[in-house]
């Protein structure tokens, strides 16, 4: 009977119920869409940054990150590598040797970053092969060939199969010099990476720098990026003091800071949105209680206990909040999936600005189920807290005063 009465009461003023339900419905959709876009943009940004080059986790010789010189590199340790690869969240482990060199072609010279890579392992983490826009990716052997980033190649006006000259300082002060056949070009979304990277097979780079078996970092790929912190913690336990294990947040602190700041401003926007929801719901509840004050007084007068009346009003409010939240949640799913499949793309100067800050100028949406659950629950919680207003009013009501017209 009470459920039936609550349900019927819900529709006694269709406009009021519709307004309240619509307020909750749109609140859920807006908060989910905003959070999904925010998370999607940052996930994409992190993925770009991490997958293009940094990786989710890097392992170096202790102290390398503060003084990034070849002399702080580490000798490859097969036993250690096997242990790391055996961790359940690790999908790939790519050894690298990285250092700077001067690249020359004809009468032009430019600084570049030489990255010695294991072609197959590197490809698992950064998908480097997919970024090849001209020529070929390294085969198993690799040989004495290099792959240049697009911006660097344009600077030199290079073609595939041209030869580039490199000169640098090798391991322990040795002179490093060599000429290399250009195998292909790769393109990066990040202008910073696109203008300076030069890849060569690990063995070739080790020979170039006169550092056999030396690597400067292990770059790790993860199966689940949400478990980054626990994975880092595990690896630190395995690595002891010999190696330093760093997550992308430590490798790219500016990016992490930027994300935190941007998320902070998004919380303010969401807070304003929640406040609007509160006013919307509370306004209609206030209206409802004014309208039904006489009736509540009458029901108490004829013998309905206030507890039962409060339950009745609570049930009505819960019905409204649940209808709004669930329909909002259900409608937001296709919307968010659509935004994931067809991300918002921005163009013009804005896109250029984004590129300058290493952002891809696209706004994909994240379909992480926790967003739907969290936002749905927050709005549901707001609705339920506000539902206490009619309950409190019922408990405070004096039937004599309530029935005075």
């Amino acid at each position, binding site marked *: *009977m009470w459920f039936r009465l609550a349900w019927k009461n819900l529709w*006694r003023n269709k406009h009021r119920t519709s307004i309240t339900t619509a307020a909750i419905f749109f609140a859920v959709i807006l908060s989910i869409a905003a959070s999904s876009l925010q998370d999607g943009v940052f996930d994409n940004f992190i993925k770009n940054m991490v997958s293009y080059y940094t990786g989710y986790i890097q392992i170096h010789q202790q102290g390398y990150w503060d003084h990034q010189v070849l002399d702080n590199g580490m000798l490859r340790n097969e036993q250690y590598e096997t242990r790391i690869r055996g961790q359940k969240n690790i999908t790939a482990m790519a050894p690298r040797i990285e250092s700077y060199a001067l690249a020359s072609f004809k009468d032009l010279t430019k600084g570049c970053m030489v990255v010695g890579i294991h072609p197959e392992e590197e490809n698992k983490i950064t998908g480097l092969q997919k970024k090849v826009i001209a020529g070929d990716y390294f085969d198993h052997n690799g040989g004495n060939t290099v792959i240049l980033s697009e911006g660097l190649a344009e600077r030199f006006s290079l073609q595939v199969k041209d030869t580039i000259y490199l000169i640098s300082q090798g391991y322990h002060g040795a002179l490093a010099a060599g000429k290399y056949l250009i195998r292909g070009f790769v393109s990066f979304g990040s202008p910073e990476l696109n203008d300076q990277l030069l890849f060569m097979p690990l063995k070739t780079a080790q020979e170039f720098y006169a550092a056999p078996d030396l690597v400067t970092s292990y770059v790790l790929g993860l199966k689940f990026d949400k478990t980054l912190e626990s994975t880092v913690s595990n690896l630190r336990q395995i690595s002891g003091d010999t190696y330093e294990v760093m997550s992308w947040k430590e490798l790219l602190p500016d990016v992490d800071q930027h994300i935190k700041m941007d998320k902070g401003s998004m919380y303010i926007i969401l807070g304003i949105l929640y406040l609007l929801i509160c006013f919307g719901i509370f306004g209609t509840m206030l209206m409802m209680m004014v309208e039904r004050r*006489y009736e509540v007084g009458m029901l108490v007068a004829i*013998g*309905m*206990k206030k507890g039962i009346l409060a339950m009745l009003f609570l049930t009505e409010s819960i019905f409204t909040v649940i209808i709004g939240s669930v329909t909002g949640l259900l409608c937001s799913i296709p919307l968010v999936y659509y935004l994931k499949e067809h991300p918002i793309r921005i163009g013009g100067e804005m896109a250029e600005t984004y590129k300058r800050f290493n952002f891809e100028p696209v706004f994909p949406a994240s379909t992480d189920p926790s967003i739907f659950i969290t936002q749905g629950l927050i709005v549901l919680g707001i609705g339920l807290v506000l539902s206490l207003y009619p309950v409190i009013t019922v408990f405070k009501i004096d039937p004599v005063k309530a029935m005075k017209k």
Partner: protein
Amino acid sequence: MKTVIDAHNIKKIYNPETVPVVAVNNVHLHLERGEFTALVGPSGSGKTTLLNLIGGLDKPDNGSVIINGVDITRLSANKLIDFRLHNIGFVFQSFNLIPVLSARENVELIMQLQHVKKAEINVRVTSLFRQIGLEDKMDVRPAQLSGGQQQRIAVARALASRPQFILADEPTANLDTKSADNLLDIMAKLNKEENMTFIFSTHDQRVIERARRVVTLVDGQIHTDSSPVSVHADYPVTA
């Protein structure tokens, strides 16, 4: 005769600390089972306040209200609600049926609050609708009924809990002559056949004429307590 209501020396003052208004002043009222009593008096004489005190909706500042042997002024708010549910029927001036429920559901509601079994509810509802002559309107919502019909449903709702007595606050005030007469016929019949006790507050001369006892209030005090004819002669009742 069994005493149903024994209000003793009751007093109610509104705004005692600012502008005190003595709504009911040292009233003694004793009602036996089966009485058909009208409380009359000009506006502001304290009729509704006295009904509220007798009905346990309000508490007196002084005195006691004993219903069926229970001093309701000593009951807690929750127990008072429960007492009202089982002992007092209310009929209000503006019907106050729940608009989203059918006529039958409005009457059933009070019995459901009393946890009466479903089978018994059905029997009592059918009987009540027969008594008020609205068997064909059981599944109709209040908005589809006339004012008179709604007030008859309100009477059925008041009777549904099998109360000790029914308090009716100006029950005919919003009704046309025919509907008012019809309602009074039903109430008089219930009073006669089932010995149901009725107390009305009213300005309506028709109610006063049909009451077997008329209590006149002036300035919160009982002015006269007698038959309608003598009241009519003694104190001119106007709306």
